[in-house]
């Protein structure tokens, strides 16, 4: 019963991720969304690996848990590239691409050094607590970056509906996952009864939301973001 839940989630995730890539290919926007597509392909490969892991070791095994958390951390670092591509799109009219690139390289270096420092310090006990803490921190960096990006979108009066929806979906994903990781850190005993079911559900949100955006929102669609916020207050 439990195994089938994880299998269904993995299969749904895999199919939706492939769908996003195929959708951008059909709409001839594969290369303009190369970061998203690369991320989706990697995510699909990881999901496929997760499916194999479930079949071979079961969802209660430590192999499954370590595979899930460590590939998730790697994918989160890859997701920073997607965020950077969004920053580049937002700042494209300001001709600030070179500054964004430099800031991105600095951010990636800082993340790499920080991760190395943390892993080096904990090399003798790369336990489940550590991997949860690392995932939580990486996702929280994602929340902060997405929030700053949303601020830039509002400040620069960005109107591209597709970009706005992609960024908002990313914000939901990062904050949802960071929050779930934080609960896992606060209450480790909740992992088995609750959190291990929550992670695949939150993980499915992003490909679903992006699939919706690429399918339903035309590239030239426009939206007044300021009015969204004014009414939300």
């Amino acid at each position, binding site marked *: 019963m439990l195994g089938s839940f994880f299998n269904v989630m993995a299969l749904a995730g895999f199919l939706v991720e492939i769908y996003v890539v195929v959708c951008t290919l059909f709409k001839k926007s594969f290369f303009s969304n190369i970061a998203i597509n690369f991320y989706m392909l990697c995510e699909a490969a990881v999901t496929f690996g997760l499916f194999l892991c479930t079949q071979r070791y079961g969802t209660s095994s430590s192999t499954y848990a370590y595979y899930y958390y460590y590939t998730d951390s790697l994918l989160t670092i890859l997701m920073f590239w997607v965020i950077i591509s969004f920053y580049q799109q937002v700042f494209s009219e300001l001709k600030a691409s070179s500054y964004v690139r430099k800031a991105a390289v600095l951010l990636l270096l800082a993340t790499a050094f920080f991760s190395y420092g943390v892993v080096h310090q904990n090399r003798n006990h790369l336990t489940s607590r550590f991997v949860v803490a690392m995932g939580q921190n990486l996702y929280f960096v994602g929340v902060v970056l997405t929030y700053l990006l949303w601020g830039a979108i509002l400040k620069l009066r960005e109107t591209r509906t597709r970009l706005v929806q992609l960024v908002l979906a990313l914000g939901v994903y990062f904050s*949802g996952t960071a929050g779930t990781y934080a609960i896992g850190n606060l209450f480790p005993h909740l992992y088995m009864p609750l959190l291990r079911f929550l992670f695949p559900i939150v993980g499915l949100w992003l490909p679903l*939301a992006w699939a919706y955006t690429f399918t339903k929102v035309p590239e030239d669609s426009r939206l007044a973001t300021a009015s969204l916020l004014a009414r939300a207050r």
Partner: protein
Amino acid sequence: MIAALIFVISFAALLQFFVLHCRSILAYSRRVELSDRVREVVGLASQNLAADDFARLLQLVRLCPERGDDHKEIRVVGAYYGLLDVVGRMSRPIVPSVAAWTENERQSCSYFAAVALDRRISYSRDLFTQQVTDCL
């Protein structure tokens, strides 16, 4: 301590991003003009739909043949409507301005459901026309 702080900030960000994401979907449907056909089906005399019409409209949507491409948005807006309903009920005696805002938002959700119904009715008519053409 850090985990608790991250949880609080993430939860606040999650709520904000989710509300804005739903609003961007609703804003997209607000531009669509309702057809006379759906107005007749819904029994809509004036321009505005009531906030409480959402559930009734959703039932009508479910009666129509599925288009297959509007599942996700209906589910997301349904969740948003549920959240607004809870916030509205809780805030009515304490903060009436928040309750008024949730009422407006719920109205937008109803309009969204009417647009979805309109699309499904058009789709079922197209299906029917296609079947009749095939029979001939």
